[in-house]
Each structure stands twice: as structure tokens, then as C-alpha cells.
């Protein structure tokens, strides 16, 4: 039995209770403002450079009853969006001073509009999320980021300098580097952390001051080094699909004889991927990184790169099987399903596709399916 990781415990302490946590309360108590953001096309670095705390608006480990939210967002929409709006209706996001989103997904846009209409925050903004990955897309996104920076400066009555953005880029690059290191360690035959633990780490990154997070990441990696921690499970899984913030769901997979060694989520490996180029002007560097520097994601029109990336992860992490956890009503995942299945079949990689509701605990049915999947992996070995 591995001992709990002290640094992870501290991350969880600081980011609890969710969402108005110890870290948020401390930040606000010191006079700081908190800016919520929805999706991965909002560069946290710009919010950080403005001296504010970027905070990802999500659900967490507890399922949320969404009846009130469904009066605003009908039940044929993504349950992550409904969860977030329900949390807002319940007053859980009352600490936000602002909100920034991107046009990455129809449902994110609608959630943003609900905030704007029913609960307008002092600062609200929206940037474009390019669907293509080419130079034109970079320039379009850069132009939107510059407008965002201008409006954000107006909000503050203070234009934060390029030097400040460059400094924030360094801080976030360091965070990515440390998180990437953790992902590298998970390639070991016996990874040092479970998938559920790694997910908690990723969530902490977007819920607390990044400098403090980086310090704790350094401690975490040192702790892993000194304790020789190992997770001994028979099967290695890759989780792909929707962003899931309920670590209990991941833990349910791992309650069987399997460990999640890597994921393909925006909340996960994409946040630990690559570096913003510090040799370029900072705004341009951010635009290039956010459009081209991360692995292709499900919202990109051309999914070939995403499929390739999944295939590469399978090889690099010596994965036995892939679990695709798709939150229902996600259009992007919906259109990728056929090709994900085809690609996995062609590569001879077992795939389990699970449709689920965001935030809900793993039910008996899901456990049965995962058990059957693991048995199938066992017999195929």
C-alpha cells in the first residue's frame, strides 16, 4: 500500500472545499480578483499577467442535481454545462469577478450567455477558438487575444506590459514542464501515481495560484523520487474523450486490477504539453502555442492528428486498452466516435466506449462493463 502523497494532500487541502476553496478565500482576502474561464482556448497567462487568479469553471467529485439548471439549459445539452450553471444557481461561483470563454463549443457559448444575461459579472469576455491549425488561424486568434488584452486593460484601467505577460509565460511553462515530468514518470512499468491522483493534480493546477502549484509540483516529484512509490496493477489504461473532473469515476476504473497511465483530456495531458516559445513576442507566442503547440483536440475540424496522438500515447505508455468516456450530447466526440473505433481496430487496440453523464459516479453498469473489458484484455494477453 502506497502512502498518500503529502504534496497532493496539500494541493487538495488548498483547493477544497470546491469551488470556493481555501486558496480562493485567501486570494480574495488579500484583495485579489478571480476570473473564471471555461475552456482551453482562454490563455490563463493573460489573466495571470493582469495580477488576477484564473480559475477553471467546472464541476468536481460530487454529482450535482441539475433540475434548476435544466429550466435554462434543456436536458439535451451536455451535462458539464448544466452542472456548471447549477453550481452558479446554487451560489457556488459567487466569488467570481469575471468570466472569459471562447467559442470552442456551442454549449460553452450558451453557458457564457446565461452568465451574461442572468448573472452579469464585472468583467466578461469571449475569444475565438480556431478550428483549423494553420497560419491564418494563428493570426485570427492572435487578433482576438490582442482585443481581449485591450478590453481587459480597460477593465483594470491599467495596461499590463509585455514583460508581465512574458513573466507569466515563464511561470506557466514551468508548470507544464513539471506536469509533463509527472506524465513521463507514468510511463514506468509501475507508475508512481494512479490516474485519479494525476487528475487531482491537474485540477489543482487551474484552481490555485500557479506559483504555489509549481512549488507543490516540485515537492510532489521529489516525494515520488524519494519514496519509490509504485502502483502495482495488471492492466494499463488510456482514458480518452470528454473532460471529466470527477476523480471518483477514474478511481472506479482503478478499483479493479488496472491503472490509468495516461489520458487524452484537455484537463490532463494537453495542459502538460509543450512550451510557449519565449523567444517570440509574448502575445504571438501565446497564439502560436494555443493554436499549434498542443495536440490536436476534438474541437479541431480535422481529427487526423487527434487519432494519431491517441495512437502514439498507446505505444509510448504501453497501454493495454483504451477507455473512451464520452459525456452525452458532446457533438465533437459524437463525430469522432466512428473514426476512433476504426483506428483502434486497425491498430489492434481494445477499446471500451462509455457514454456517461458528467460528474456522475461510476454506477454498477459501468463497473460491469469495465470488468468485462478487463477480462477480455486478460484473456487476450
Amino acid at each position: 500500500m502506497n502512502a498518500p502523497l503529502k504534496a497532493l494532500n496539500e494541493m487538495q487541502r488548498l483547493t477544497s472545499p470546491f469551488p470556493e476553496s481555501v486558496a480562493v478565500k485567501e486570494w480574495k482576502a488579500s484583495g485579489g480578483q478571480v476570473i473564471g474561464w471555461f475552456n482551453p482556448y482562454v490563455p490563463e497567462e493573460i489573466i495571470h499577467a493582469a495580477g488576477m487568479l484564473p480559475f477553471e469553471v467546472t464541476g468536481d467529485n460530487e454529482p450535482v442535481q441539475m433540475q434548476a439548471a435544466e429550466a435554462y439549459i434543456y436536458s439535451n445539452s451536455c451535462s458539464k454545462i448544466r452542472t456548471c450553471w447549477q453550481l452558479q444557481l446554487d451560489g457556488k461561483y459567487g466569488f467570481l469577478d469575471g468570466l472569459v470563454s471562447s467559442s470552442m463549443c456551442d454549449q460553452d457559448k450558451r453557458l457564457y450567455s446565461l452568465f451574461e444575461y442572468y448573472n452579469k459579472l464585472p468583467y466578461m469576455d469571449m475569444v475565438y477558438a480556431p478550428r483549423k491549425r494553420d497560419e491564418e488561424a494563428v493570426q485570427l486568434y492572435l487578433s482576438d487575444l490582442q482585443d481581449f488584452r485591450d478590453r481587459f486593460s480597460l477593465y483594470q484601467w491599467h495596461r499590463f506590459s509585455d514583460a508581465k505577460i512574458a513573466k507569466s509565460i515563464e511561470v506557466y511553462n514551468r508548470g507544464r514542464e513539471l506536469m509533463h515530468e509527472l506524465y513521463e514518470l507514468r510511463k514506468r512499468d509501475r507508475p508512481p501515481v494512479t490516474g485519479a491522483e494525476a487528475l487531482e493534480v491537474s485540477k489543482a493546477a487551474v484552481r490555485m495560484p500557479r506559483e504555489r502549484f509549481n512549488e507543490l509540483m516540485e515537492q510532489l516529484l521529489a516525494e515520488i523520487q524519494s519514496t519509490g512509490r509504485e502502483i502495482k496493477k495488471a492492466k494499463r489504461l488510456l482514458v480518452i474523450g470528454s473532460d471529466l473532473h470527477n476523480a471518483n469515476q477514474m478511481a472506479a476504473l482503478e478499483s479493479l486490477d488496472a491503472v490509468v497511465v495516461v489520458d487524452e483530456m484537455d484537463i490532463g495531458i494537453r495542459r502538460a504539453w509543450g512550451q510557449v516559445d519565449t523567444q517570440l513576442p509574448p502575445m504571438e507566442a501565446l497564439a502560436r502555442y494555443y493554436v499549434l503547440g498542443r495536440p490536436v483536440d476534438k474541437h479541431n475540424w480535422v481529427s487526423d492528428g487527434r487519432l494519431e496522438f491517441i495512437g502514439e500515447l498507446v505505444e509510448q505508455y504501453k497501454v493495454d486498452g483504451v477507455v473512451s468516456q464520452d459525456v452525452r450530447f458532446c457533438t465533437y466526440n459524437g463525430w469522432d466516435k466512428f473514426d476512433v473505433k476504426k483506428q483502434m481496430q486497425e491498430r489492434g487496440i481494445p477499446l471500451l466506449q462509455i457514454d456517461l453523464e458528467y460528474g456522475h459516479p461510476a454506477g454498477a453498469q459501468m463497473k460491469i462493463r469495465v470488468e468485462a473489458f478487463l477480462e477480455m484484455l486478460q484473456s487476450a494477453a
Partner: protein
Amino acid sequence: MSAPQKITGPTGPSTSNLITAEELLGPLKQAAEGVKKKPGLMKSTVGYMELIKKYVERIVTAKDEGKWVATHGTQQPLEIYEAMGVRGLFIEFWGVISDVVKLESVPEALNISASTGTPGEVCSFFRNMDGLMHAGKWPRTDFLLYATSSCDNVKAYHTLGRRYGIPSFGMERPYLPYTPKALEHWKNEHKRLIAFLEEKTGKKLDYDRLKETVRLSYRLTELTLEIDKLMAHVPCPMSAECFGGVLVAIRLLPGTQDAVDYLTALRDELQERIDNGIGAVKDERFRVLWSCFTPFWDPTLMGFMQQKYGAVSVGEVLANWRGEAKWLLDPDDPLGNLAYRTQLAPGNCQYASSQDWASNVVDQARRLKADGAIFNNNWGCKQASGLGRLVGDELIHHCKVPSVTLNVDVIDSTFVSRAEIESQLDSFFEMLEGSKAYQERRAMA
């Protein structure tokens, strides 16, 4: 298009009801003839049916006439297609016209789509295309063309294009469209589209021809606005059988003389009916605004509403031009004009904020003197599912116009029973009639 996979057999889904472009033509020809003899219909019904028939015919005969066919989404510069000999096939229209001719086709295509693993929660316009392509029943298509500006489902164009070997091109539309940088970017996307089409067709765009198609398209906009003003008349002169005509003209055939001729005739007939005191029904009791889209899944519902409740459809958000729609800024800059038009065009509020959509609907409700609004919450539409409440609240706040939400699938007639819809409409119109706002409005009419 690559050869479809074989799906028939003892375990595969049925394909016997799928309708092809060629099979659509026969019934459309019959319908065009039939309405000539049917009493009580607006005269323009004939022109409307002729226009639809011609649209399908253009697709069927394209190859023989040396033309190309592009299956496309919303907000496309069809004037460019027209100038380059490329015939558009609007994906949404295909599901709608299939329902008009043979209701069984769409559900069967959706079953086939499901059999490939596509979830039933994505838009059925696209699932219909998926199923028909899989069965080899989608019309011959040379390219798939699309833009960011409709919805997340446009990802399917590239996905299905790759699967079936059809080249595709997508245009990235900025989210905030009217900044100089955004307009410039969007205009450049039009240039990239032209480059794509020139490469694929081996034919250069004739800019003089483009100027002409843009001129025709602008005339269409002017006619639409004239018709819109006539629709505000009480009683409304437009009857259900012609209601879809404007949408067909402006979203399927901009840049064509046929569409201009049709809307000219429709406008003249509406004016004539107003002059003669003729309304859609003898006793107009309710003026209805469709605040999401019209009942494509059930082509008879609007006519039924007229007959049963005296409820006349006066407007729908997807055919609503914003303001005066003066998009012909510089006749010598057809691309600049088009870039502006495709930003401004009806239906573009789908891609904007919910408030933008709501402001369009409120504007229509005021102009068209609506009594109530019907919001069709399309099962597969994630744009709609997040804005029905907000649109309804805005309508009440600004115009005291109540809404009802119908949970439907945009083209799948089997998704919800007609009886259930009728029951909801019974309650809605009963409530409407008893409301103070309605009674005040009627007293002033």
C-alpha cells in the same frame, strides 16, 4: 465519392424507404402540377413548388450539364458557387424535402447512421446525410463546403468527407464579426474558398459574373425585406402553403434569377391580397412567431394550426434579415460585399450570443405583431437547447409575448407524436387567449 459499404442483408438496417434525388423529382413534378388544380391555395404555391423542383433538378442534372455539386452548410457565399458553375446542395434542405415527399426516408437514414456508431444525439440533418452517404443514396457530391458560423456539427463535413473520399473546405468565421480585422480575415476566407474551387474545378472565377450574381442576391434581400413588411399586415396575407418560400429563395438560391422572379411574384401576390382584404385565414386569431425554426419534421403542422386555431405563422428567426440589411457596400468589391452579407445573413444569430438571437426574435415579434412564439427545441441542436429560456424571457420582458417549447427532432417525424404536439398546442393557445396581454393587443388591433 468512394463506393458505399454494403449494408443490406439479414442483419443490416433497412434501406427500402431511402429516397434519392432522382426519386424526389417525380413527386415534386406531380406536386407542382397538382397545386395548380387545388382550390384555395395562394397562387405563389405553384411558383414555390416549381422553385423546389428546379433546385433538385439542378442537382440531378449537374453532371450532364458539366457542373459541379457542393454539399454545404449555412452562411456559404452561394453567389460564388453560382458564378463558378457549382450547384449548391444545402444539407438541411435535403432532410426537409425528404420529409415533404416521403416521411419514412429520414428515420431510415438515421437508423443507418446509428448502425455506423454515430450517436443519436448529434444533429439529424447531418445524421441523415451520414446514413444516406453510407447507403450510397446521397446525391453525387464533388465537394463539401462549410463554415464555423453554424454549429459544432460542421466538423462532420471533414469527417464524412474523409470517410467517403470527398474533398472538403471549411471557412473560419470570427466570433465577433464586425471589427476591421475580422472582416478582413473573413474576406480572405472567401478568397481561400475561391482558390479551393478553382483548383478542384480547373476553372477561374469570372469576377464580372460574380458581380452579377451578387447583384441578384442583393435584389433578393431587398425583396425579402419588402415581403417582411407585408407580413406585418393584420390579417397576415401569407398562408402556410407558401410560408417556406422566402427561406428557400434566400438560403438556397441567392444569386439566381429564378429566386428573384419567385420572390417578386410572391411579393406582388401578398400586396394584392392585402389590397383585397384577404388573409391567410378568414378569422386570424393568433399571430405566431417561430423563435427557433419552423416544423420541418411535419410539413402539415402549420396548415393544421391555421385551420384548427386560426393561428397564422407570421415570421421565423432563420429568415430574418437584421435591420435594413444594406450589405452592398461597394458594387466593385463583390467579395467584400459577400463577406459582409454572409456575416449579416439570416440565421447567423445561431452562431452569436443567445442575447443576439433573442434580440432578433424580439425585433420580429414587435414588427410582426406576434401574439405567441413557438420554440422548437431540436434534440440534436446544442445551440437551441441552451437558449430557449433566455429567448422566452426576453420575449415576455420586451413584448409580453409568451412562448411554448416543443421538444422535437428537426426532421425526424417519429421523434414525437403528432398527438403530443397537438395537445401542447391546445394548451398553449388556450393559455394565450386568456392572457391579459393578448386581449389588450387584440383590443388595439
